[in-house]
């Protein structure tokens, strides 16, 4: 017999890593198609597909995108950061209060400090991140209520913050460019640096990473610190977008950020997931929201659709393994 056993005909199969991204991207096309069909039927124009409209939506999505980028680092570790809402608000309030050239460094600094505190609690005190970051969130809220008296601060966002949030370079919103910059940095960090590899390693098996010599505690502090900085940056941009900071400005970003990361195929237990997925997840949520608001869907319907989409997507590719040992 001479003919070597030829390999079975290669069938097109998606790897477990790519499937979520492809499915989510496909769903974005579905959302766009449904929305366009709706606008064609009611207004006779494909508003949704015009570049101006899409860029405007992505500009608003940039805030969520930056928060989700940071959240992803923490979720990859197998943890979660529930302090994002008030980290964001505190950074925005302090940035507008300080004002001037120091505004943005102050926002980033506050995010970093909060993140390091979170990392310390999780890495050294070994308190579950779920509850420790919840406590930090409560403390930050308390600090900000005491500082502002419970009202929206009267201080204005600086010119630079406003420009970063609503300015345009050659027709492209600056916020989008900031999001792109954050994305590039996160991708480089995750794929090309020891820190990134350590994050994945810890997410897979912390004990194994520790025994292999990964400085696990330092990685925790860095990852939480970066997550806090992302929240702080988003806070500065959001304050610039609405020209001032206000109470509860971060509340609308926590759950969508977690949902975006998970829809993008990142395992909520850590260790697996690609940044591209998170990007696709954010775009999906932003477009879903904008199509639903074009359709003038009441809040009740939005919530239901939102929940069904998350469950539906996860049923397609987010199912865990059956426990058999």
């Amino acid at each position: 017999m001479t003919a070597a056993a030829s390999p079975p005909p290669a069938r097109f199969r998606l790897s477990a890593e790519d499937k979520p991204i492809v499915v989510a991207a496909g769903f974005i096309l579905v959302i766009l198609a449904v929305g366009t069909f709706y606008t064609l039927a009611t207004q006779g124009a494909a508003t949704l597909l015009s570049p101006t409209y899409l860029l405007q939506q992505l500009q608003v999505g940039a805030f969520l995108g930056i928060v989700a980028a940071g959240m992803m680092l923490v979720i990859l570790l197998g943890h979660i950061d529930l302090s994002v809402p008030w980290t964001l608000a505190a950074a925005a309030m302090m940035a507008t209060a300080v004002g001037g050239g120091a505004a943005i460094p102050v926002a980033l600094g506050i995010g970093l400090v909060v993140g390091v505190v979170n990392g310390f609690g999780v890495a050294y005190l070994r308190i579950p991140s779920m509850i420790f970051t919840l406590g930090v969130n409560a403390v930050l809220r308390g600090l900000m209520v005491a500082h502002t008296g419970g009202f929206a601060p009267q201080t204005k966002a600086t010119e630079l913050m406003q420009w970063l949030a609503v300015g345009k370079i050659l027709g492209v919103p600056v916020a989008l460019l900031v999001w792109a910059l954050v994305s590039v940095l996160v991708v480089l960090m995750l794929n090309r640096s020891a820190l990134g590899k350590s994050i994945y390693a810890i997410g897979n098996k912390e004990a194994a990473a520790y025994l292999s010599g990964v400085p696990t505690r330092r990685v925790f502090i860095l990852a939480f610190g970066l997550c806090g900085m992302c929240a702080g940056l988003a806070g500065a941009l959001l304050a610039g977008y609405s020209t001032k900071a206000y109470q509860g400005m971060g509340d609308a970003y926590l759950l969508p950020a977690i949902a975006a990361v998970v829809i993008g195929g990142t395992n909520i237990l850590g260790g697996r997931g690609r940044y591209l997925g998170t990007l696709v997840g954010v775009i999906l949520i932003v477009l879903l929201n904008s199509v639903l608001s074009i359709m003038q869907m009441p809040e009740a319907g939005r919530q239901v659709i939102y929940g069904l989409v998350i469950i539906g997507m996860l049923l397609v590719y987010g199912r865990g393994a059956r426990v058999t040992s």
Partner: protein
Amino acid sequence: MSDLAIRLRRNGGFLAAIGLFAAFYLFYHANHPRGFSVPVLIQNVNEAFTLAMVAMAQTLPVLTGGLDLSVGAVMTLVNCLASEVLTGGPLELAFGILLCLLTGALCGFVNGCVVVFGRIQPIIATLATGAIYMGLALFIRPSPGGKVDGDLSWAATNDLYEIAATYGFAEGGDAAWFQPIAWIPTPLILLILVPLLFWLPFARSVTGRTVYAIGSGEGAAWMSGLAIGRARIAAFTLGGFFAGMGGLYLALQTSSGNADIPQAGAYTLNSIAAVVVGGVSLLGGVGTAVGALFGALVLRTISFNFRIFEIDPLLQPLIEGVVLLAAVSLGAVRVLRVKNTLELFR
């Protein structure tokens, strides 16, 4: 180590929660301008009841090692439903109450099915179902309001005397034999009866033990031939039932329904805090719903104390936050006790 020492150690968190509650609550009454009085007790139990129920609801998923982000939404959904159905004659009222409790249990059952058959992580599955329940609540009640039977509302949120007076038994509450118990607040009785009737039998059943086994080691539970899927669904269903109880009571207490998203979120987050303060491990397998109940009472008692000391309202959230952070940081004691660093990674 003696038997007693082992028992004390295993229930350390639970006992600490009871101790904290007793200390805070005694301190509160000792410093109350009017001293201990029944109206104050009634008011306190009323304010704590819903959170206590939601905390018990959170306990069951947490015992299996998961987290339920939908408890606040289930509570709100039932609250809104109750503001629609709790009117009419005795039969309609009874049917309405039953409908509310069943709705809560059904929501929990759906959560359990999504987690078990969908094999989606509980935290993310309930994040999604929570959004759906919130949407349904908004369908039922787009703006706050509604109507709840006044007699029922009055009777359920006061002392036993008012029940007797409202519904006319024990000579309208004036019978001599009734006097020794007439002062007892109705919600306090409910607060004792609910764990006694629903939690204890469940925890002692095979299904209940299976819930603990899943939290301690799911693989081992599976290998031992336990019905882990069924136990998980049962845990979520009972959790939904407790959350529904909380929503029903909130409707009786406020005589209205309110599909308030921030309020639902606050209840969910507070339930997690209450569970941890009550000595339930977020890793699963350790703790009881009664502990979580005391955890909720601790959280509420802290805010009672703010009132009598006239602390600047602007500082209250800060103090609440610091106390919460300090309470959960007590768990760090474990780090000092561990002899082998590898034991920390679980």
